[in-house]
């Protein structure tokens, strides 16, 4: 069985930094939204949780920017096969469904990346605006707007990420190892990422 590499060690490390910082941000964010005082058992106090949230935001932002090199080029290549993939529901609507050949990321993964990138940048920019209060003519207006943006982006992410986790684990056996060892069997890749496999010369 031929094994091929799909993710580099750095890509894997960065993915888990992104995921870990996201979990910290999302949990503390939920704490702020719903006044979850139970979280004091984890963070100690809301004062500590605020600092953790803010500095985890720094890590998240840095990690998100690094993903651009890994996923943006392929995600921007959106063609007829991607549209056809969506029209077929990604093959997830029935056991027998067949989908057109996909690139290194399938159409759904491309869309997911674009959603994470845009909402991630929006949540970071708005978070920093609230945190650091830049010198602007009307800071109250900027904070009200940032609060809105921060929360819209959060809603998008809190829906997208669980679906991503499901699709990367239970729904697609054999996918998770990409973010552990970075490799997949050639046969597996041919079925799911035919265009990519062809492009890299197999």
């Amino acid at each position, binding site marked *: 069985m031929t094994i091929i590499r799909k993710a580099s060690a750095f890509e894997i490390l960065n993915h888990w930094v992104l995921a870990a910082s996201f979990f910290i941000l999302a949990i503390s964010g*939920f*704490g*702020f*939204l*719903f*006044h979850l*005082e139970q979280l004091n058992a984890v963070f100690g106090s*809301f*004062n500590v*949780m*605020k600092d953790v949230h803010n500095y985890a935001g720094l890590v998240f932002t840095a990690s998100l920017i690094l993903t651009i090199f890994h996923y943006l080029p392929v995600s921007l290549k959106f063609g007829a096969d991607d549209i056809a993939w969506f029209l077929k529901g990604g*093959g*997830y*609507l*029935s*056991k027998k469904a067949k989908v057109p050949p996909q690139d290194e990321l399938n159409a759904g993964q491309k869309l997911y990346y674009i959603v994470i990138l845009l909402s991630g940048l929006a949540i970071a920019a708005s978070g920093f605006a*609230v*945190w650091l*209060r830049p010198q602007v003519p009307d*800071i*109250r*207006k900027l*904070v*009200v*707007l940032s*609060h*809105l943006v921060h*929360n*819209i982006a*959060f*809603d998008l992410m*809190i*829906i*997208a*990420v*669980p*679906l991503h986790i*499901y699709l990367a684990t*239970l*729904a*697609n*056996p*054999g996918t998770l190892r990409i973010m552990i060892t970075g490799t997949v*069997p050639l*046969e*597996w890749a041919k*079925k*799911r990422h035919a265009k990519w496999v062809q492009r890299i010369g197999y």
Partner: protein
Amino acid sequence: MARKALLISPELCIGCRGCQTACKSWNRLPATKTVNKGSAENPPDLTPNLYNKIRYVEMPSNSNTVRWLFVSQRCMHCDDAGCIKICPAPGALFKTKEGAVGFDKDKCIGCKLCVAGCPFDVPRYDEKDKVSKCHLCSDRIAEGLMPACAKTCPTGAIAYGDRDAIIGKAQKAGYQKLYGQTDLGGLGIMYAFKDTPKVYGMDESPAIPETIVFWHKVLKPLAYWGLGGAAAVSLLHYLVIGPKKDEGGE
């Protein structure tokens, strides 16, 4: 406990600022250095060490050289308070049983969202980034005393009492509706204006920023239901359709 309130009557105010001093004295707030900006209004704005102040409005007048309006300015102790709504730290801002909006600097995390959420631009933050504003002398009123400003006022321009009683009295005195009687669920500071609110430097119809209301009603529950929904859809898909199996793949 009946909701307490202040009734401000600008026409009774002589601009002595005894209320400002009494407030500083009771709340142990230090004086702040200010600059003369060509008006007797001083300091020019609320600060973390100035919970209330008199706004000086100079109007042209036919009967006098000038018409002076003195308007007490401070936290309005809103029933539907934007500051409490937006605050992410439990207990940092809270309602007392008298209807005052109090604060707890230890619980405040210094995010300053309340500064943006308040329709009246009231909350300030101190050098440690902690919230600071009028709390209607909630420590005094809990003991049955009146707020320091009302106690000091020599003319009755700041009157303290049960909110319902104040409204009843004002109606008998010929005021159909006080400023703040119904705004934001009813303010704890009401004004007996003889002219439009604008003349006194007040917003005609104060409101919590729309996006904050939208966030509270839609975006906040969506975070909860969105997470649950995504998890439920995943589980349902797993049970009904099941994972993608590649024959010979794994």
